[in-house]
């Protein structure tokens, strides 16, 4: 039905996950798989680019919650970027901005990781 696509690319030490389409209970396992791969490769610095994501359900939100702890324990994090307003609204209502970092642009998020590295 609703299509979903997830791809990962590396920008320096940071992995960027591009999400496309609809992220819901049916497609969430694909994203989980992607996170599992990152952990297998010891990649804990993750930026999720929401530029082409049209919809996210509560099951989709759950994926980030499930992995953020592991990332943070390993000196990494999951940061969000390029979110469209209606998608951000969902995150905002839930209070995610208190717990996660959101950026207008992917570069800012990567920059944030790199700054931390230097300091």
């Amino acid at each position, binding site marked *: 039905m*609703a299509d979903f696509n997830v791809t990962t690319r590396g920008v320096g030490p940071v992995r960027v996950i591009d999400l496309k389409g609809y992220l819901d*209970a049916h497609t969430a396992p694909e994203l989980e798989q992607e996170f599992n791969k990152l952990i297998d490769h010891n990649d804990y610095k993750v930026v999720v680019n929401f530029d082409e994501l049209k919809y996210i*359900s*509560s*099951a989709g*939100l*759950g*994926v980030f*919650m*499930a992995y953020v*702890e592991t990332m943070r324990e390993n000196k990494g994090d999951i940061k969000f970027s390029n979110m469209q307003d209606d998608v951000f609204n969902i995150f905002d*209502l*839930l*209070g*995610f901005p*208190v*717990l996660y970092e959101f950026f207008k642009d992917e570069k800012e998020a990567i920059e944030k990781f790199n700054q931390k590295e230097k300091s």
Partner: protein
Amino acid sequence: MNLPYSGLVSARKLEITILIGIIILVFKFIFPITENSFILILNEVLIFCALYFGVLYTSHFTQLKKNEPISLIINIGIFNAVLFFLSALSSSLFEVIPSLEVNVNFIYSAISLIIAYIFMAGVVVVLSAFKELYFIRLKTDTHKSYDAMIVFFILAFFAASLPDSKEDPNFIGLTFFVVSIILISINSFRVSWIAFLTKKQKTQLLIISIILGIIFILNAVSTFENSFIKQLLENFSPGLHSLLRLMMIYGSIYCGIIFFTSLFHLPTAEAFDKKVEEASSLKDLSRLITQVFDFNELADSITNLTTKVSNSDSAWLVTKEPGGLKLSSVSNIGYVDADEITKIFESEGILNQEEFVTFSRKQIRLKIKNDIRLFDFKALAISPLKVHNNTSGFLFAARKQNYGFDEDEKKSIEAFADYAAVALENAKLIEESIEKERLKSELKVAREIQYKILPSTTPNCDNLQVSALFIPAYEVGGDYYDFFRMNEDKLGFVIADVSGKGISSAFIMAEVKGVFETLAKLIDSPKELLVKANNILSESLDKKSFVTAVYGFVDKKKGQLSFARAGHMPVYICRNQKIEKLVPNGIGLGLDYGYSFEQNLKEQTVDLVDNDIIVLYTDGITEAKNIKMEEFGYNRFESIISSENFENVEELKSKIINKISSFTQGNSQHDDITLVLMKWVSNNKPSGVN
């Protein structure tokens, strides 16, 4: 009078037959011997009628044996033997009486009557039995030659009473007699039923036909000899004697033909038996497939029948399971042996070809090098179980005799493998549907339980109208709402949405209900309550799950609404057809179990004004989708609420339901929908004073 119709009619026929018999009795005592042709004709007509109704009556019994020709033949034999015995005995005891006119007396009349009746009965039985034999497996509607034969029988019957002497022989009678014999010869060839007998029955028939044929010939010969019986019967009725003679000739010819036919059928009898058995086995199997749902039971029948039909010594059935091949059933072979042979052939890669294959002694010897026990088998056939080009297993048939499977046997093994495949498929489908049915009924129970968890009625308050709605997307959902009467003045309420859908969220929802119900009794402050709830839920929620909620209460005395929002959808207050969205800070339950949750949770208090409508909902409403996958959205939802001044919240509720259902028409519901509406109507306070 509950006699069945045919029974009633046959009783009537018996009555008529007996009546005619009595008339003949009386008639014969009045005219023991006669030369008067009119009385003679009357005599013949009476006897003909007796024979006619007698045949009609006995037909009822012979018809019952329509499918047992052997038993019919034996019946003929018994009566025939009685007649033979009678004629032989009487001929040896009594001499031919020289001049009947002088020597006739009462005793003779009585004896002659009894003997004549017995012969009549014999003729009747033999005639009706032959009739039945003629019509066995008759495939055409035309039986002209039979009808013609009967007609000539009747003609011969009546012509027999015409005067006959050395100088002036009865040519008419003779002609009818000869024509009758020709027709008998033609009709005697209708013995196709012999082909359908089993080998055993054919052998029986062969022996019976020899004995019966001899008796018939002896009887027929005796009708030509000048004996006591001949004299007696001819005196009783010339027609009867003529008919008896015809019957005996009929029997002789018929038995001869039966003898030769069954003799020639004997060599092919075995092959024919096998075909019949195969056909009936397939019939049994197809019946089993529709009746027996247990595959193992079916597999047993399949292997059993396979050994029978293919002349094998052993057969076994293996099915493909996720873990590999599994032996489902064996016939006449040990599980271990069958398993071992299967494994050898599997490891040789023969089973991967998924085709019907047979192996000769040499080939088996090559395959099975290690095990001497398995050398027993000299021929082996393997047939795949195929349905829709999908192989679900294999049927093995093995033989100890040193000759290969012929085409017929291969075909029947393949046919049984096909049946097994269908049965296997059926059994699987049935198992699945039973499982599905079970889950369905359990979900139904879960649904009922869930509806019991939710409040069955909305609380009645003087100055607060309350209405609520819950529509799960699946059988069960993860939404929850409830009301708590905290004290006289305060009515607590909660609306919550568990992440995810279906059963997993329904379990959490039940737990959430327990937490809120308990805490509502202990804690007044919405913020404090939600913080406590977050702590409790941290122990049971998994990492992926969270719960959004709004908890609050309406203080009726103060006319105030107090609430806190844990990541949930905004709380609407509609005042004078204008919506105010209240979104105090707060993150969802389960997102963070530390300090952040408490720190970011803000409590909000609103002074209510008369006719304010408080709207609580879950995202199932705003995210309801139509066929084009467009969302119902905030705007549509809000415009309904602010469209008019709703006197009654029920009205608003039904308007919202209607709008959503017409919007989503044709599309299935994606998420649970929950809606709680409360309207503040402080009637006791005149408006404008506060």
